């Protein structure tokens, strides 16, 4: 466990929210005696029942975006984004805005609760039922899509950490039968259609409803019977109960617990964590027993390895790339700005709406490219997506018309500063990268501010200087390599 000090507080806030100002970090440090107490405070929020409303997908997108910018519980939204990627469902196929909005609320309400209950709820989520074809899974035309992704992506993963397959094709085929007959009705309410359900007696050629004869460490070649709590509507719950008992390796570790712990670490910390990081947090939180997401998160945030991305980038530090949505929301929040109106547009330039910018950066909320979600880390970055980030940075820095949607440095820093070194430090601090910059990068920023001379004084109270150089400095930092990372 790291020392409880300002850098630790700031890193904790940064990775569990959308950017962290020095003031907020200091407040967290001052209000809690220990790291553990601070983490408890961050995790004790009551999940909101917010559901983005609107007729078109742009509307619910913009409502959610605005909510993220305003929220006092940013960890909640970080989690909703994670679950949105994890249980990736795309409006592209679902085609119904209200179902996407309902799923969004489902993810929010369950974001830090019981993971097993969350999966059982996703089984019956209307948008998910459309997306992975549960609604087309009928007794005489079974559809395996959901059964496959449930195991492959949502709970177990294709292979366990030791490289062995977690399930067989046979497991998928049988699990698909459990989901036959499910559909949704009015307002997305799940319905079980008994007449469309694949009952074992009707299809003896499909064999018994048993799974994990070989995989899962159950040690029973006859397999696990998912009609044990009754055949019919209950099967989908029993299937989940069985999956959550799946174990791997000679140590018979719980597969779902380690898989989800790894995914959450990859999201909040960095990709490719060590097995010991994963296993220790799963064990310390008893995740395999309680399925309590908040408890698991607490162990992640207490662990030393969580703080490995805190240091400035170097050959030994790990770094993570900000998602496009992180880039946009963090920027607006750190600069204490708002986006304008129904389309959540930036004021500077053409009143470009944030959704177009995000799409060009490679992330369209409610429309993940596939059930695999988005590709993270360096896959976010190419010439075209970087240009979209640079364009957004320019638009933000060009917002000079006054009001809450403009960049107002006077609210963020002391404009009577004249020393370029201090000004660069202040801007870098506002954007949360002051502890990340090397001496060379700092010099480059000072040279920018002073048009190459390297020395001041710089008069920020002069309108032209402020609009050109100070706003320009914000843009340059927002476009810098360090700011793309976290």
């Amino acid at each position, binding site marked *: 466990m790291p020392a409880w000090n300002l850098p630790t507080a700031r890193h904790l806030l940064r990775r569990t929210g959308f950017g962290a100002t020095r003031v907020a970090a200091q407040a967290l440090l001052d209000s809690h005696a220990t790291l553990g107490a601070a983490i408890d405070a961050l995790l004790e929020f009551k999940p909101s029942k917010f559901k983005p409303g609107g007729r078109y997908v742009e509307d619910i997108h913009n409502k959610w975006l605005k909510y993220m910018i305003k929220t006092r519980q940013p960890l909640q939204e970080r989690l909703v984004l994670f679950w949105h990627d994890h249980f990736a469902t*795309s409006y*592209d*196929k679902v*085609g119904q805005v209200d179902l996407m909005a309902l799923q969004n609320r489902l993810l929010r309400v369950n974001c830090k609760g019981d993971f097993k209950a969350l999966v059982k709820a996703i089984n019956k989520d209307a948008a998910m039922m459309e*997306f992975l074809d549960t609604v087309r899974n009928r007794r005489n035309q079974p559809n395996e899509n959901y059964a*496959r992704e449930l195991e*492959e992506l949502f709970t177990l993963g*294709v292979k366990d950490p030791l490289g062995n*397959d977690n399930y067989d*094709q046979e497991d998928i085929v049988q699990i698909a039968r459990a989901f036959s007959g499910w559909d949704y009705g009015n307002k997305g309410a799940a319905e079980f259609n008994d007449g469309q359900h694949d009952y074992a007696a009707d299809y003896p050629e499909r064999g018994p409803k048993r799974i994990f004869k070989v995989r899962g460490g159950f040690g029973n070649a006859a397999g696990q019977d998912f009609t044990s709590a009754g055949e019919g509507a209950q099967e989908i719950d029993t299937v989940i109960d069985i999956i959550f008992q799946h174990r791997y390796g000679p140590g018979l570790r719980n597969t779902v617990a380690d898989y989800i712990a790894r995914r959450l670490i990859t999201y909040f910390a960095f990709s490719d964590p060590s097995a010991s990081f994963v296993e220790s947090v799963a064990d310390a939180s008893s995740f395999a027993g309680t399925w309590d997401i908040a408890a698991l998160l607490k162990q992640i945030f207490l662990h030393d390895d969580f703080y490995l991305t805190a240091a400035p*980038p*170097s*050959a*030994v*530090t790990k*770094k*993570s*790339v900000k998602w496009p949505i992180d880039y946009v929301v963090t920027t607006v929040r750190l600069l204490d700005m708002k986006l304008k109106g129904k389309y959540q547009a930036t004021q500077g*330039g053409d009143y470009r709406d944030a959704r*177009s910018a995000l*799409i*060009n950066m490679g992330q369209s909320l409610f429309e*993940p*490219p*596939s059930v*695999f979600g988005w*590709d993270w880390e*360096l*896959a976010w*970055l*190419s*010439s*075209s*997506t*970087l*240009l979209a980030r*640079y*364009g957004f940075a*320019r*638009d933000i*820095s*060009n917002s000079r018309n006054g009001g809450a949607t403009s960049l107002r440095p006077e609210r963020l820093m002391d404009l009577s500063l004249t020393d370029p070194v201090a000004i660069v430090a202040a801007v870098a601090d506002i954007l949360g990268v002051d502890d990340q910059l*090397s001496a*060379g*990068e700092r*010099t*480059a920023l000072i*040279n*920018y501010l002073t*048009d*190459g001379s390297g020395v001041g004084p710089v008069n920020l109270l002069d309108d032209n200087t402020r609009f*050109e150089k100070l706003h*320009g400095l914000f*843009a*340059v930092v927002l*476009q*810098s*390599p*360090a700011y793309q*990372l976290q």
Partner: protein
Amino acid sequence: MAISRRQFLSRTGLASAGALLGPNLFRNPWMQQAMAATIGDRYFVVLFLDGGNDGQNTIIPVTSSLRPAYESNRGTGPGGIRIVNPLVPATPMLDQTGQIGFHPGLHSLADMYDDGMVAVIQGGGYPDYNLSHEVSRSIWERGNPFSSVGTGWMGRYLANSGYLGSDIPAVNIGGSVSGDFVQTATSVLVFDRLNDFGFPYDYSYSGDSGTKDAAFTALHNAALANGNAAMQYLGGTGNSTLTATNQYPTLHDLYEADRSAWSDQYQNDTPAGLNTGTARGFREIAKVIYGVAQGAIPASLSARFFELSNGGYDTHSNQGADAADGDHYRLHAEVADSIKLFFQDLADMSSGAPMGSGLANLDSKVTVMVFSEFGRRIEQNDNGTDHGSQGPMFVIGGAVNGGVYGNHPNIDDIDDNGNTRYSQDNGNAFRSTDFRDVYGTILKHWLGIANPLPLLPLDTDFGYAGVDYWTAPNFNMGFLP
């Protein structure tokens, strides 16, 4: 038995299509050479007709056995959309039903057909046709009706060809990357006008741009020198991006300096230039090709693959017949006239160019593919048509083996929804053309992919087999040598 998703992913390497080669492979000469050998000196353009082009009024029965069915479903007189006199090119167009012709708005395409430059591919589509614009478009762009895949078919081609995040192999004319080019391996530049493309500097303080460039470059050079892999990647890609924003607009300057009379033909209305969105899009592509062919910008930034689109094809009403002021006529004329001018421009660029040089034979080095997300029903409604299924595609260029490919859909035997029936049955005289055979033929015969199957999974890979499904590829359709 269908293979599992896992097997499919590992077999095709698609799981790693989004994974990037390490930053140490920024400049791998072997990779560059391999890429150059694959596509040689060629260019490829995709033109998407947005909205569902009415194929039945694009390629039309003349003295074909389907003419009576065409006439009984489409009327003349007010609201009627029947093409009474389809345009017959000098080289007769024949399919399995007899003689067919073009919509008169496509007269420029008919001219090119007579030059042997146009392959008309009939009955393009896929099984279980989806009539939603968004879903069907996505299917065409992803090259996959049955699975949720996060990449476009051209995107998979780019990822498979080893391009890096700092390379720019493709340009899309428009506002965002088109679905067929989506991938996470490399960069697709997006712009409407080359002249407006550039680094996003401050709108009001342009004098500061030089100092901003200096700061940007210094920061990204520092990142390149950092031991951290993510920083190195950002440093290299950022620098390439800045270079691209400086280099690409010079292509506009070069073209305008050398070919301003041609530029006017795409744009101006006096003397009568085309002055349409599609024409302007092709002009921007011509600008890039003209510069790239002469090595005017660094090779790694030289795009060869393009996409543009023309909208307005969703003609549920007021479609119009053969009158020149009709909606569909104007759409057809816009597209055909633009393509003809584009190839004339390319041919002119090549005249006088030394043999073997980049500019030589440009009109034979560029191939254009035209498609729409679906066709429309043979039965007209009040004065237009509703969404249909399979429809014609075009592949156009100097290297193309012109002619008619595929079969005319059977408009005499439509299903309960009013759509022609899609079939892959070899015994069926009206057998459809799976769009993936067209993509595959292009990948194999134009883009140098010896075996396109990893990029275009069969329907059997997803558990779909039977007479309607695409279970046996034909990547040698013949429209490209």
